[in-house]
């Protein structure tokens, strides 16, 4: 089938051929592969997204599944078969309670400043905790908040989504309920005029939840 490459010089490969290609690329990578990377590697004119969607459906119920991770895609073993892979298990450092709480706050409140994390936990966040989460590739620096002092914000990474099996931060469990209960707001304490709303959540979750959750 050497023709597939030659033909591609002139026109995009047929859909089933494109599906084979994204399949091969996905299988060859341990890391999620971005749509841009697919397009860079596939013949000119290819459309990775429809091919990926078709492939995802094809693997439904199989031993491995095609998953979306942010803007990227990956193949992962089906969660119910994890017991077969005990030998493959990487012993991960047990995270401290401070670290897991901080991670959850970053995930649900992103982009969030250190001061906001501290406000929620009621205790100062040690530099090491955020460092550890960043080192694990789960938390990254976001844009600076355009408020006095221009504090840096923290957000989750694609690695975070991949690790916890989420397609997007919108898929965080219980997000809608938390939001409905007002628990993702950063209310200023009474008498503290300075506080004000944080644009943080609004930046991200107003858009993301708003337009994709008619069931909210």
């Amino acid at each position, binding site marked *: 089938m050497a023709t597939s490459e030659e033909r591609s010089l002139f026109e995009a490969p047929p859909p089933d051929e494109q599906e084979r290609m994204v399949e091969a690329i996905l299988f060859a990578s341990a890391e999620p592969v971005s749509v841009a990377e697919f397009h860079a590697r596939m013949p000119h004119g290819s459309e990775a997204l429809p091919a990926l969607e078709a492939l995802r459906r094809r693997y439904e119920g199989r031993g491995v599944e095609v998953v979306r991770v942010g803007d990227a895609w990956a*193949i992962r073993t089906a969660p119910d078969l994890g017991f077969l892979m005990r030998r493959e*298990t990487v012993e*991960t450092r047990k995270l401290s309670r401070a670290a*897991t709480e901080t991670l959850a706050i970053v995930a649900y409140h992103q982009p969030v400043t250190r001061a906001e994390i501290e406000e929620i936990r009621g*205790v100062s966040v040690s530099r090491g905790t955020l460092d550890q989460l960043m080192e694990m590739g789960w938390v990254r620096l976001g844009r600076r908040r355009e408020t006095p002092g221009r504090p840096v914000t923290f957000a989750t990474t694609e690695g975070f989504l991949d*690790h916890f099996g989420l397609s997007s931060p919108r898929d965080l469990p219980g997000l809608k309920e*938390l939001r409905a209960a007002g628990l993702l707001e950063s209310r200023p304490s009474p*008498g503290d005029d300075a506080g004000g709303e944080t644009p943080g959540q609004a930046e991200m979750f107003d858009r993301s939840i708003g337009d994709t959750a008619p069931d909210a």
Partner: protein
Amino acid sequence: MRVPSREEAAPVVDIAARMAAEALIVDVDGFEGPLDLLLMLSRTQKVDLRRISILRLAEQYLAFVEEARSLRLELAADYLVMAAWLAFLKSRLLLPPDPADEGPSGEDLAAHLAFQLERLQAMRDAAARLMARDRLGRDRFARGLPEDVTRVREVRYDATLLDLMQAYARLRTRDDFRPYAMDRRDVMSMEQALERLRGLIRFAGDWVELATWLPDGWRGDPARRRSAAAAHFAATLELAKEGRLEIRQDETFAPIRVRRRGDV
């Protein structure tokens, strides 16, 4: 809160160190800050966080701090700040509101504290749910035998017609200065000059300006004149070395003069 261990019969001098260690136990091992402590105390009320009595909670917290003091445990500053704030809140909640006071009401402050506790609990639950998900490397696995993408870097060289023209022009221009490309007609070699001088020197009994010895046809064109002058000067040096000629120049840039030395 832990009661300090009495197992070790530590010497009296270590009491201060032990006290410090115990304070650490309360801070680090026990609770993650005053809000965490409040959350733990609130559970003793056995009601939904939304219906918690903040007044009772404040009293519980103050009692805890009091007990810590009686045990002579050093509490971190945060805990004491929170205790002071809760004492203030308690007074606000108990006393009738002062119409002259513009600050927030006790109820507002209590509601905010309740919100903070509920939010912290919510994040704690969210963290637990997150950690319980099917996780990569534990429940779900990535490709074990990934294939590396070989990156092939192809270098393409490029040149324009202008590059080509410039290069060629550069070469042709350079020809003017390249010895091998010089027209031999305009170059006099030292050997040629030497041969001439060997003949001429016999007639130089007295000082003669070297310039007058340049051959006809080599005096007009500057390039030819320079070449002939250089060749003749080099030749006189050669003859002087052989001891057949003397060279003299009275001052810098003065004419160079030569005369025969001894017999030829």
